[in-house]
């Protein structure tokens, strides 16, 4: 098995097992209200963390660059009610233009 084949098989099995774990463990019964109240707050916590770690970090270094400005422009488009595809194109264009100048 080549190194890239082993990588693909390993990552595929790992991610599939992690997606399966929650539904297997927490299936079949309704969660208590306290747990549901936490579930309702999971999306803002996870999404905000994903945004800042991808916009303000380069690996394990904190960094602000043209990509950060692009993300801010894409966010402004989202606040203005634009579709997600418009927002990501705005972000990419702003980022690319800032890098080019």
């Amino acid at each position, binding site marked *: 098995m080549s190194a*890239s084949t082993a*990588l*693909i098989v*390993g*990552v*595929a099995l*790992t*991610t599939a097992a*992690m*997606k*399966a*774990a*929650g539904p*297997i*463990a*927490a*299936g*079949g019964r309704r*969660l208590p*209200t306290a747990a*549901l109240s*936490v*579930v*309702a*707050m*999971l*999306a*803002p*916590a*996870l*999404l*905000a*963390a*994903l*945004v*800042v*770690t*991808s916009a303000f970090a380069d*690996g*394990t*270094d*904190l960094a602000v660059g*043209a*990509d950060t400005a692009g*993300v801010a422009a*894409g*966010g402004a488009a*989202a606040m203005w009610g634009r579709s*997600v595809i418009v*927002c*990501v*194109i*705005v*972000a*990419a*264009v*702003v980022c690319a*233009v800032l*890098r*080019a100048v």
Partner: protein
Amino acid sequence: MTETTTGALAPTPRQRFRAGLRAGIPFGLAAGVLSISFALVALDAGLSPLATIIMSVVVFAGSAQFASVAIFGGGGSLAAAIVAAALAHSRFLPMGASIGPSLPGGPLRRALQGQTVVDSSWALAARPDGSFDRWLLFGSTLPQYVMWQVGTIAGALAGDVIGDPDRLGLDAVFPTFFLVLLIGELRNGRARSVAFAGAAIALVLVPITPIGVPVLVASLAALAGLSRRAREDFERRAAEVAA
């Protein structure tokens, strides 16, 4: 089951699936742009075009794919690349636990349905009462799966023409994708506070933990939902939806 207690006027599974398809198409287009940049990063890391395409087909998890090829291309061991993928993917543990009660069937059937969860479809399928609309989930994931493959194939075959993805600003696409989802979640003051706390936790951890860990630990900000006032607000919103 929620599917039989939502009343006579509730949309059918087919209608919910189609609503999911419609909601998922813009995210699918954005996922297509994102997967072009994945393909370029993967080629740069030394994967062949065919291996790059196969990885998107069998893995279909953006952050795990990006994290693992970054380690692989940087000369890291196979084990390190798989661990990086697992950490980047770790938010799917709490996400999967949250959606589990909304998936019918035995453990195997729930595990298979759980494979269709991606960030955007999980957020789109969430109902205010803490349950999830699985048909909307399936519908919104489908265009994203298809476009993830289309973008990967395009990037893998045209990689030499496109060149450096950063030159095209494609590294701004991934955070913007999640920012659009986040803005849709900030409906009330508590959600905004939790988002702020999650962002702060993640930023503090970025320099001192491996990629993926900051996001997993940031999920602890959701424990704000345990406060008495949060539970009361939650029950009130759930009752409004049920009425």
